[in-house]
């Protein structure tokens, strides 16, 4: 028996309509904001926000930022590779169980 998804579909359509209306108003807000904002580049930063005598080497912060991205991407790729290997091993074991000649 095929399940009846018509009610769920109607509800989904209603939800998507609400979402579209929200997006429309956000777009309007964005257009208005774009109209009023001044065309400036990077905001000037008051150097007195740092306490006197405090000095952070920028190179260390840049190295930390770039290093973090590199490590995060490497760890994620490693995790996907490890998960893929586990699934492959399980697949092989199951195939052998189904057909011992493999």
């Amino acid at each position: 028996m095929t399940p009846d998804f018509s009610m769920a579909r109607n509800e989904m359509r209603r939800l998507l309509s609400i979402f579209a209306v929200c997006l429309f108003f956000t777009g309007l807000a964005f257009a208005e904001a774009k109209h009023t904002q001044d065309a400036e580049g990077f905001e000037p930063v008051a150097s007195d926000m740092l306490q006197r005598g405090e000095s952070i080497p920028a190179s260390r912060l840049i190295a930390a930022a770039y290093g973090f991205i590199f490590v995060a991407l490497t760890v994620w790729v490693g995790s996907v590779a490890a998960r893929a290997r586990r699934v492959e091993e399980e697949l092989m074991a199951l195939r052998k169980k189904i057909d011992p000649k493999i």
Partner: protein
Amino acid sequence: VKRLSPIYLALLFMSTVALLFAPQLIVAAPRESTMGLVQKIFYFHVPSAWLCFLSTFVCASGAAAYLSRESERGERLAASAAELTVLFGLCTLVTGPLWARKAWGTYWQWDVRLTTTLLLWMIFIAYLFARRFGGPGGKKLAAGLAIFGAADVPLIYVSVSIWRTIHPKTTVVPTLQAGMRGPFWLSLLGFSLFYFVLLGMRLRLERARLELEALHLAADDAGLFDGEE
């Protein structure tokens, strides 16, 4: 092991070339007048944020397909993209404060852009938990969360224009100096191509899992697990 498609290999090659070449341009790019050297975080911070947003929309599209048409492909796409949203969201949320420490004198401000970005990241953490531990209705709950999360992205984008904030405005990229444009766009291109490489890699894992599930069901139907706990 299944062979990689030529398109996938081409994407991998192009993104590698772009990401190897971009740091050289970033080093050679002029220093920003008020922030100096630390502004160079911008070249990786903005592409990370852009990919976080792109991934959110990819995830929400897959989730909408799953909720409206029960599309399993959509669900797998959403799950793969959600992990990348969390990954690039984390990169944005870590590199931003490192830049802010020098530029604003503090790592974090409960500024509207920072707060809404943190909220987006937390919504997608919730997505992963709901999908993994949500039980029978977990995938649907997660899909709803993904659509809800996507509505936060336009808000994040316009927040700097609507509310008072210390975060740089959206006019920064269109008004970049000539020497800064090249490294930025190359970095953005490299990251974007690499995003599709990562998405393809994650989708392969989902397909392998699907195959494993189908094989388990077939083995179960054939009575292969009879007598096993």
